[in-house]
């Protein structure tokens, strides 16, 4: 089996490959393997939530072959971390099927979920990296984690630290990494969730924020580490440094997520090849980074959204493949692009929450908005709706959810290139009481009602 020492060796001794050549190889090899496995023309726009298990299994076989042929490229050294067939198979079995985050009464236990699993998926919710001011940041966190279905928390990204602009890779990032932990921990304590697991360090663009935050008095080994690899099948020193630091403080079983990001229309091509590349990246990055939560998403390169039809389909196929063929705790995302306090944002979020839950995700992360463009444009209600939909859809069939998603997609998919901006957090919430305004409550309840009428068994709410 591959260890961290193997990884550290291979980033220095693996075969050399320039990044430009790597990027060209991604699609060329994917086309070859997709053709070999008869995966050409498989995209099914009429069924965005796939329930084709034989397709999922074939994509899985293709992805294993692809990963063995490609490996993972280390950008810093431009050398490939090659994985043998045995190392990949061993990795599939050695990566964990259970995990834990948080402490005390707020501790949560994750486990591998099967497709249509009746046990609920763990929610990882919050602003998910949206830029927020020092003033609004703690209020937003506190408001999000008030909801009992929010199991763990992922915060916003601070843009200043004590008034200084944060610049990634500089001392301000290191300073802000610790600062984030103090603000978030106080915020969740005020919400009555002092032990809730916090995914961090959200603002850590490089390793410095992470090193600053995971320290005495900051985040602990029970707070899952965020380690997000870029597209496609790549890693780099900052990400490997995060991996090592997490092992230093808590060992290989300290929870950490890895990621596989693929762009439909980008280096991985179209949906047919993206599913192979994305799945290979998910498995490869999980093995290389000794990950607890292999996470993945396929976003549309034109709209940068993952809530469109192609993305929903691609992610459902990859989720199905992982749920059926591994015991991973698979992570899903909501990368909504509309702004907060808009119907579109709630519908995008709901689509992602339900589709990824029924396809076997063990954790669901969210909720992004507006590509992170507008300061403080993130609200708790999107996290709340995500939490409610994730819990309500445990045990539903993919076919049922597919029918719901088919109703919801046309409501927003033509707006993904030019979505509504929404409004900032403080304009839809009373920031003294941390309750939604009447207008916000009406919007949230109207979407809840619509989802319930479509067949999503949301729990009781005030109409």
């Amino acid at each position, binding site marked *: 089996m591959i260890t961290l020492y193997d990884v550290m060796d291979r980033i220095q001794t693996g075969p050399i490959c320039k*990044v430009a050549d790597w*990027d*060209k190889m*991604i*699609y*060329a090899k994917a086309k070859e393997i997709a053709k070999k496995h008869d995966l050409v023309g498989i995209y099914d726009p009429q069924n965005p939530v796939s329930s084709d298990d034989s397709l999922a299994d074939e994509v899985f076989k293709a992805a294993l072959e692809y990963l063995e042929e490609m490996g993972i490229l280390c*950008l810093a050294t431009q050398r490939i971390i090659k994985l043998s067939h045995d190392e990949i198979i061993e990795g599939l079995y050695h990566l964990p099927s259970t995990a834990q985050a948080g402490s005390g009464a707020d501790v949560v236990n994750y486990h591998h979920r099967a497709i249509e699993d009746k046990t609920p998926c763990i929610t990882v919710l919050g602003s998910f*990296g949206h*830029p927020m001011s020092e003033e609004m940041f703690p209020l937003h966190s506190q408001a999000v984690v008030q909801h009992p279905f929010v199991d763990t928390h992922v915060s916003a*990204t601070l*843009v200043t630290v004590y008034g200084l*602009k*944060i*610049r*990634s*890779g*500089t001392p301000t*990032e290191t300073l*802000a990494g610790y600062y984030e932990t103090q603000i978030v921990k106080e915020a969740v304590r005020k919400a009555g969730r002092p032990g809730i697991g916090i995914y961090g360090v959200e*603002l850590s*663009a*490089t390793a410095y924020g992470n090193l600053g935050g995971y320290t005495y008095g900051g985040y602990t080994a029970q707070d899952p580490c965020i380690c997000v690899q*870029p*597209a496609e099948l*790549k890693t*780099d020193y*900052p990400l490997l440094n995060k991996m090592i630091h997490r092992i230093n403080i808590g060992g290989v079983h300290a929870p950490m997520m890895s990621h596989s990001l693929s*762009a*439909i*229309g*980008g*280096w*991985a*091509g*179209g949906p047919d090849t993206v599913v192979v590349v994305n799945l290979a990246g998910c498995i490869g990055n999980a093995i290389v980074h000794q990950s607890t939560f292999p996470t993945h998403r396929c976003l549309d*390169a*034109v709209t*940068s959204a993952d809530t469109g039809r*192609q993305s929903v389909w691609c992610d459902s196929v990859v989720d199905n493949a992982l749920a059926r063929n591994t015991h991973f705790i698979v992570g899903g995302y909501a990368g909504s692009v509309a702004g907060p306090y808009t119907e579109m944002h709630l519908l995008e979020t709901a689509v992602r929450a339900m589709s990824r839950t029924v396809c076997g995700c063990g954790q669901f992360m969210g909720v992004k908005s507006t*590509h*992170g*463009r*507008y300061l403080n444009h993130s609200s708790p209600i999107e996290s709340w709706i995500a939490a409610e939909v994730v819990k309500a859809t445990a045990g539903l069939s993919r076919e049922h959810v597919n029918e719901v998603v088919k109703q919801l997609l046309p409501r927003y998919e033509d707006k993904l*290139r030019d979505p509504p901006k929404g409004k900032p957090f403080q304009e839809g919430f009373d920031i003294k009481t941390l309750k939604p305004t009447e207008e916000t409550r009406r919007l949230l309840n109207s979407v809840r009602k619509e989802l319930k009428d479509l067949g999503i068994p949301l729990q009781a709410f005030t109409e």
Partner: protein
Amino acid sequence: MNDEEIIKKFAESVIAGEKESSIRIAEEIVSTGVDPLKAIKEGLLGGLQDVGGRWVTGEVFLPEMMESVTAMKAGIDILKANLSGTALAELKLGTVVLGTVQGDIHDIGKNIVGTMLELAGFEIKDIGVDVPAMQFVDKAQEEKADIIGISALMVTSMPFFEDIISILKDMGIREKYKVMIGGGPVTQEYADEIGADGYGRDAEEAVRIAKKLLEVS
């Protein structure tokens, strides 16, 4: 084949990303005396606009666009020898130094923009990812660039846009370059706030803005 047919085949080979065909047809253009400038302008560049459009609609993907760029460059290399200095200058819309700022290793958006700009006729000097601010300026000076194109996907990398502009001002060379910025969290308002010359919300708009800044078509 008459001139129009040769030019049409030239365009088709480039749109299809067939480098060898592009070279062969370019050689035929030279040997048969077809106007090389006409072949490039009518055959290549018009067809390549089509490739960019088809990327937006999902009919082609980034690797296929890159193949078209490679075929285009191979064909133009053959024809260059038969072009006057004036004609060559007319073809090149401008030089763009393009990179992702320090602390940020995301490049897919930058790569798509770079490819679309190349398809449109710009020369791209891609300096990669995690690039310190001063390196953008150094490269722009070295390449005598027209545009410095800066990308960031991380919010905490955006302050480096301002740093690059500050360096240009402090060196007294701000007016020599047009500065364009882009990336997920970037907005027109932010571009205006920091004094950038242009912002592209997506790759298509980036091409349009780049042409507008350099007053070319």
